C-alpha cells in the first residue's frame, strides 16, 4: 500500500493495466511526452513507448473516431478528453458509434474504450472547464458511466473500466485530484495523504462496475452522491449531526439499485446531490427510481440538491456549487416532513 493522490492512483491504474495488456493504448491532447495537463499520464510514454502513449491532434471527434477504429483492430484504447467540457465534438462518435457497435453488428465489432475526462467545477474554471455532463451519457444506451470519489476507488474502477468489453465514460472529479473537498472553499485543502482512502495497492486490483459504496451508515435519511459531492455530504453530516446514510454511487450506469432501495426503505427519506444542472440531470433519474421502487417507504418528498440550470459562472462559482449550506437546508427540509 502506498499513499497516493487521485492523479497518482489514476496514473498507477493506467500503468498497471498497460503492463498487463499490450492491447491498451493511451492517447489524447498533451498526454504523451508532457504527461497530460493534470499529469495523469506522466511517465507512461517513457515506460510503454510512443506507439502506445501518444499526443493527438486537437479534435475530440478524431480522438474517439480513431479509438473506435483501433477497437476494430483489437486494441483497447483509453483516450483522454482533456476537460469534460471539450467532449461534445466527440458526441457522435461516442453515442452513434462506440455505444452502438456491439448492438448494430450483433457482436461482430465491439468498442472496449474507456474515455477518461476530468469533470466538475470548484477550480475557477469558468463555463468551459467546470461542467458535469454525466447525464448526457447516462441517457445513451450502450454506455457505462463511472465517477470515482477517492484514490483507492479511482484506481480499482479505472482498471475495471479498461478491462470491461463495453465503452465506459470515466469522469474524474478534478476538484478532488489532490485532496477531498467538503465544500468549504475558504478553508485550506487537506491533502489525500491524511485520509485512509489514499492508501492504494501498488499492483493490480479492480472494483466492480455497478457496485455502490456505503460510506456511512445512518437511520434518518439516505444521501445519494458521487464524485466531489460525496465529500461535501460527509462534511455536512459531520457538521449537522444528522444521522444520514451516505451512499457513493461510483457507477451511474449500471446503477447499484439494490444499495439505493435497501437504504431508502430503511430511512424513508432521500436527498440526491450532484453538481450538474438540475433539469434532466442524473438526479432526476435517481429520484424517479426511488419513487418507483420505494414509494411506500417514503416519508418525505425526494430532494435534489444540484447545480442551478445555468452555465457554470466564473465569479459566482460558489453560488452555483451545491455546497454545504444548500445541502444542509435540504436535509433540514426532509427531516421536518
Amino acid at each position, binding site marked *: 500500500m502506498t499513499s497516493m493522490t487521485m492523479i497518482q492512483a489514476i496514473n498507477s491504474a493506467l500503468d498497471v493495466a498497460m503492463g498487463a495488456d499490450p492491447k491498451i*493504448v493511451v492517447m489524447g491532447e498533451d498526454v504523451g511526452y508532457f504527461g497530460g495537463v493534470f499529469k495523469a499520464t506522466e511517465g507512461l510514454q517513457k515506460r510503454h513507448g510512443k*506507439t*502506445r502513449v501518444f499526443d*493527438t*491532434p486537437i*479534435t475530440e*471527434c*478524431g480522438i*474517439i*473516431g*480513431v*479509438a*473506435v*477504429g*483501433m*477497437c*476494430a*483492430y*483489437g*486494441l483497447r*484504447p483509453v483516450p483522454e478528453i482533456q476537460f469534460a467540457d471539450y467532449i461534445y*465534438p466527440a458526441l*457522435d*462518435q461516442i453515442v*452513434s*458509434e462506440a455505444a452502438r*457497435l*456491439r*448492438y*448494430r*453488428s*450483433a*457482436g*461482430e*465489432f*465491439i468498442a472496449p474504450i474507456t474515455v477518461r475526462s476530468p469533470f466538475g467545477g470548484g477550480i475557477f474554471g469558468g463555463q468551459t472547464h467546470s461542467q458535469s455532463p454525466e447525464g448526457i451519457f447516462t441517457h445513451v*444506451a*450502450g454506455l*457505462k458511466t463511472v465517477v470515482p470519489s477517492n484514490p483507492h476507488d479511482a484506481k480499482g474502477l479505472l482498471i475495471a473500466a479498461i478491462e*470491461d*468489453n*463495453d465503452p465506459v465514460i470515466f469522469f474524474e472529479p478534478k476538484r478532488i485530484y489532490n485532496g477531498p473537498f467538503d465544500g468549504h472553499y475558504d478553508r485550506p485543502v487537506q491533502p489525500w495523504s491524511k485520509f485512509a482512502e489514499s492508501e492504494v495497492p501498488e499492483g493490480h486490483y479492480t472494483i466492480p462496475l*455497478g457496485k455502490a459504496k456505503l460510506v456511512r451508515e445512518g437511520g434518518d435519511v439516505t444521501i445519494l452522491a458521487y464524485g466531489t459531492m460525496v465529500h461535501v455530504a460527509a462534511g455536512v453530516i459531520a457538521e449537522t449531526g444528522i444521522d444520514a446514510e451516505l451512499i457513493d454511487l461510483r457507477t451511474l*450506469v*449500471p*446503477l447499484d*439499485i439494490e444499495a439505493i432501495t435497501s437504504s431508502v426503505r430503511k430511512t424513508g427519506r432521500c436527498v440526491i446531490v450532484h453538481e450538474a444542472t438540475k433539469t434532466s440531470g442524473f438526479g432526476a433519474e435517481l429520484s424517479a427510481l426511488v419513487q418507483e421502487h420505494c414509494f411506500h417507504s417514503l416519508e418525505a418528498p425526494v430532494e435534489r440538491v444540484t447545480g442551478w440550470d445555468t452555465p457554470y459562472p466564473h465569479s459566482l462559482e460558489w453560488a452555483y456549487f451545491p455546497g454545504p449550506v444548500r445541502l444542509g437546508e435540504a436535509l433540514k427540509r426532509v427531516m421536518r416532513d
Partner: protein
Amino acid sequence: MSDESARPNLRALSLHVPEPKFRPGDAVDFSDFAIPPAGSVARPDTAVDAGEIKDHVYGLIRVLDEEGRAVGPWDPKLAPERLIRMLRHMALTRAFDDRMYRAQRQGKTSFYMKCTGEEATSIGAAHALDRDDMCFPSYRQQGLLIARDWPIVDMMCQIYSNRGDRLKGRQLPIMYSAKEASFFTISGNLTTQYPQAVGFAMASAAAGDTRIAAAWCGEGSTAEGDFHSAMTFASVYRAPVILNVINNQWAISSYSGFAGAEATTFAARAVGYGMAGLRVDGNDALAVYAATEWAAERARGNHGPTLIEHFTYRAEGHSTSDDPTKYRSAEEGVKWPLGDPIARLKGHLIAIGAWDEDRHAAMDREVAEEVRAAQKQAEKLGLLSDGLKQPFDSMFEDVFEEMPWHLREQMAQMKAEREAAGL
C-alpha cells in the same frame, strides 16, 4: 436590415448560394465539360513526396479511351481473366440492385439504395486491395462485399431483417456488417467511418502488421468534421490508409456545389494536409483499380495515406425514399460524359478480343439467375413485410456484453405487458 443602418458610401455585400446547372426539364449540355484524354496523367513513384504531385488533384486519371483501349502509364495491365471477374462482379452488383430495388417496391422491405453507375468505384478498389485489408464503407459500397464474393443471400437476409439476418433485424436495410470479409459495420451517420479507418490503420502500423485500411464517403459528407479530423490524423501519423471520396455529384438533392465543388476538386482537400491526392475517372474500372493499387503500395511502403476522389455520377435516386426527378434534369444521367462503367469495361474486353456480345448476354442471364435463386433462398427465411422474425428478447441483447438489471427489468416488463394484452 433597415435603411437607417445602410451605409450608402460602402458597397453592399451579397451572399452566394450555389445553384446546379440543370434542374428538372432543363436540356443538358455537357459541351463545356473538359475531359482530359485517357493516359494523359503521369504515374509517379508510389514513394513520391506528396508536395511533388499537387497537380494530380486537379487532373483526372483515365485508362480507358474512347475506343475502349487501355492507354497510358496508369494501365494496370491486368490479365483478361481478372478483367472478366471485375466485369462480372459489376454486373452482379447491378442485377442485385435491380432485384432488391424491386423487392422494396413490392413492399417486401422498408428501404433500399442502389449504386447504379458507381459500381466501378467499389469493385475496382476491392480488386486492387488484399482481401484482409479493412474496409470502412459508407452505404453505397455493396460492390465491396460482392467483389469479395460475400454470399448475396446473407446480404438479402439483412435487407429483409429475416431469420437469416445475422444482425438480428437491428439495422436499416443495406447497413451490412461482415467482419469475415474485413468489412466494417455501416453506420448511416455520415463519414464517422473516416477517423475509424485511420484508427485501424494506425493500430495495424503500430503492430508492425501488413494490413492497410480504406474508407469511403460521398462528396457531400466531406463537409463533416469527421472528414477533416480523419485527414489530420492520417497525415500526422502517416497512417496506411486510403481515403476514398465518391463524388457522384449529388447528396440527396444537394449538388456537389454545396460541398465546395464550385471552388475546387475534392481531391484538392489532400493538398492542405500534405497528403497525396489522386482524382480518378470513377466510371473507368481500370483507373479506379490503378489508383487504388498505387495508394495501397504507397501505404504498404510506409509512405502514408492517399485521398482518392472518384469522379462519377449517381445514375439513380439517393434511395427508395428519394425521387430525383424533383430536383435534377433526367437528361444528366443519360448524357453523362464519362459513360457507364459496365459498358466501358465490356467495350475494352471486346476491343482486346477477350469478350463478345454473346458472352456478355450470357453473363447477364447468369447473374440475373444467381440473384433470383438467392432471393428465393433468402425469402424462405422471411420478409420484413410478413411479420416479425426476431425473438422479442433479442431487442435487449448486445446493448452490453452482459445484460444489466435495468434491461432485464424492461425485458420482463415488455413480456408481461404483451401477455396481459393477450399478444
